[in-house]
């Protein structure tokens, strides 16, 4: 049920029948690009909207409620405003790097979204090293941030960028190790196989307590990697005004803004895929009737519901906690998360070796 | 410490003190060159312990600039006012007390900024509120400002 593979196959088959293999490949790539970009834009805009609504709820406010029903078109109006705004030219900035930085950031997040499985068969590319690919790509964004900070020729920006660099390099370790726990359980780095291994239960449930610890660590480190929540030191508006994107305006600023939300989505999507069973429906052990009802809910819905839950958690952190200091941030990673993670990984390897997981 | 004891103490230290104007607090007018040593003694003397300088300001009077020091003791809670009269209105100058109370460093800078009274040996005597190239000292009574609305 709800398998997208035949649909994708028929489209590819039709293209291959009509065009030569080169043109068929090109057209399918263009189609894929258009679809991904659309998904990207819509997701980005509505994540911003969701954030504004959620934080408004937490702060006794109403949030956007003027443009469209419930303010649904507010972010679209904001996007149009940002598109029309003047791009401020900075005299002493390194112009080439200054202009290229937002694109690096946004391209990294678009590329990451390409390998995320939204439903069975609904995945742009199912790499056999999917997890590794995502880790590699999502950490490319920090290069853009570093370039942005350096090229702006602003003191606040450089501090923000350096903080961001230190932060992402540190937390990359924890993200990687937390994901490695699940890779050890699942025995594969391919997203489709990791999801297939959760047919009989999500890893967060059947992986015992170590999997849960890995999930929590992943959430913390993932939030840190997106420069969000209590870890938004790279922006830190009370210290560095806006950190690395102080000097950006108009749509270039919007790129950074959008990329931040999309990175959050990517982090949440990976958490969903690896820990919460991806697009698989929620099943309880022996309740066939219940499980059957759950099966009727489309997998895309399951995927987005789980992702939304993780995103909600991340927003909850952000609007509750004060910001950490840079040394506390690094101490948290190197003194606490990393050792816990390593021990956790050994435990999980042992559990897998003994076949003690469910 | 009572007013009489303070009077005798200050008379012992500065023989040429004069009683001041204020009726609210015990007040003494002392010569400018004694102010630093007297302040140090008042702060360190175990009977006075005037460790808290809560106000330092200047007043432009007919007989010259008055520099007024309001001090109190955080232990004994007695308050004392010292006053220095600087008859020289063109180039007024008084020793600093910023080495006795750190708070005085900025009070003195403010007084220098607005009255033009120089504090000798002050570590960082610069304009505080006004621009460095501002001409004149606004709180002096003879200050003329080109764009004052008052004619």
């Amino acid at each position, binding site marked *: 049920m709800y398998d997208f593979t035949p649909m994708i196959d028929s489209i590819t088959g039709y293209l291959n029948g009509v065009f030569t293999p080169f043109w068929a490949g090109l057209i399918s790539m263009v189609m894929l690009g258009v679809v991904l970009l659309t998904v990207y834009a819509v997701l980005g805009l509505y994540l911003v909207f969701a954030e504004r609504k959620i934080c408004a709820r937490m702060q006794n406010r109403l949030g956007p409620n003027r443009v469209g029903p419930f303010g649904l078109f507010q972010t679209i109006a904001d996007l149009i405003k940002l598109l029309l705004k003047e791009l401020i030219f900075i005299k002493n900035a390194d112009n080439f790097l200054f202009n290229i930085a937002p694109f690096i950031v946004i391209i990294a997040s678009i590329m990451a979204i390409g390998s995320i499985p939204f439903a069975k068969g609904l995945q742009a590319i199912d790499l056999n090293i999917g997890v590794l690919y995502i880790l590699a790509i999502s950490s490319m964004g920090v290069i853009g941030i570093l370039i942005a900070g350096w090229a702006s020729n602003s003191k606040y920006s450089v501090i923000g960028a350096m903080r961001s660099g230190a932060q992402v390099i540190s937390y990359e370790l924890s993200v990687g190790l937390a994901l490695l726990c699940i890779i050890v359980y699942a025995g594969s780095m391919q997203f489709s196989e990791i999801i297939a291994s959760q047919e009989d239960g999500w890893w967060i449930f059947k992986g015992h307590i170590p999997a849960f610890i890995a999930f929590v660590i992943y959430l913390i480190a993932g939030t840190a990697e997106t420069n969000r929540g209590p870890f938004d030191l790279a922006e830190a508006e009370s210290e560095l005004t806006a950190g690395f994107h102080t000097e950006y305006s108009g749509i270039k600023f919007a790129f950074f803004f959008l990329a931040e939300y999309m990175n959050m989505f990517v982090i949440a999507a990976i958490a969903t895929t690896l820990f919460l069973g991806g697009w698989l429906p929620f099943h309880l052990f022996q309740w066939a009737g219940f499980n059957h009802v759950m099966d009727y809910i489309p997998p895309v819905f399951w995927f987005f519901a789980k992702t939304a839950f993780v995103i909600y958690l991340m927003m909850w952190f952000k609007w509750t906690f004060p910001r950490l200091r840079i040394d506390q941030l690094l101490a948290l990673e190197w003194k606490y998360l990393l050792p816990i993670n390593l021990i956790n990984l050994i435990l999980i390897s042992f559990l897998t070796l003994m076949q003690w997981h469910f | 410490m009572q007013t009489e004891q303070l009077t005798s103490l200050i008379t012992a230290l500065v023989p040429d003190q004069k009683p001041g104007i204020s009726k609210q607090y015990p007040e003494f007018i002392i010569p400018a060159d004694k102010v630093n040593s007297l302040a140090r003694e008042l702060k360190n003397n175990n009977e006075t312990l005037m460790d808290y300088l809560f106000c330092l300001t200047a007043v432009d009077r007919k007989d010259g600039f008055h520099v007024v020091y309001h001090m109190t003791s*955080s232990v004994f809670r007695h308050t004392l006012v010292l006053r220095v009269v600087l008859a020289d209105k063109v180039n007024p100058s008084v020793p600093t007390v910023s080495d006795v109370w750190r708070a005085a460093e900025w009070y003195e800078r403010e007084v220098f900024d607005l009255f033009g009274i120089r504090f000798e040996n002050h570590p960082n005597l610069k304009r505080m509120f006004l621009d460095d190239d501002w001409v004149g000292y606004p709180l002096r009574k003879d200050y003329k400002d080109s764009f004052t609305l008052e004619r």
Partner: protein
Amino acid sequence: MEETLMDIDLKDKEEYIVNMGPQHPSTHGVLRFETCLQGEKVKYIIPHCGYIHRGIEKMCEKLTYPQLLHLTDRMDYLSAHINNEAVSLCVENAMGIEVSDRVKYIRTIFAELTRIASHQLWWSAFGMDLGALTTFFYGLRDREKILDIFEETTGTRLIQSFITPGGLMADVHPNFQRRIKEFITYFRKKLPEYDQLLTGNIIFRERTKGIGVMSKELAIDYGVTGPSGRGSGFHCDIRKIAPYSAYPFVKFNEIIFPEGDTYARYLVRMKEMWESLNVLEQLVDNIPQGQIMLELKAIKAPKGEYYQRVETARGELGVYIVSDGGPSPARMKFRTPNFSNLFIINKIASGHKIADLVAISGSLDLVIPDIDR
């Protein structure tokens, strides 16, 4: 960290100087911190003020006492009421008149409401300084209640100019007592919420404990008063040392924390809100009847010099009037609390990180127009 400014060669080329301000979110106004950094570490800070210097002291020399009262609102706009009270008390002392008990009670009630409102705004902004954005809305939500009470009686919300030498501008609104009692019960329920949101938070404690330690000696030496001074164990509450208005009639505790760090300064203000509620509770039911405004022919301080100390939400406010007997003062000096509280920052924040500088300057609760006047 005894030596800071003196032993650093200012011409060192490796210095990374960042100007925080005059427009910067964490300076809460037009203040500039010339901050010298070494990586994330702050080597020294030179505060520059004067961006909002309006020459209030000079203006006062040209205005009559009731007129200059309105200028004092504009110094520490969050303690506007207490500033008015300070000038009024000083002029009243000079003239040798005493206002009725009713006026004293109402003045004190207003002063304590102002103190709570000021601390609420401080709490909100302090959370923002530390990156907890939600605090801002919680604090302002409750501050609205106080501003409503102000508005009902005085017609204005922020700068009231309600107290004049000789009494009050008008009598209080009939709803006044009821509104305050409602507020006391309301805010007693809401204050624990503040603690839940920020005080108990582990990140918040890590960020504030042991940061910016100011010893008692340092506080006295620099003249740091108010909650910032009391957070260092300095007994400097003028309400206790030299009680004025209705403070002799009420029982309350002076909140002292000896630690001297940012967390202690935070706790002092949180506890002061509880104490202010207690003071309000004692006063609100017992407002005696009496004359609201003394009938004075002319408000003129006789020749002489007068000094009045009051406790604003930020510390000791001194009003120094030199009078020649005319309708306006010959010299008016405001010893403002923020002026003295500001300059400690180089001492206690150098050696810490930039984020700590923001936390420390937040915990000193600076209101910039009060520094510059």
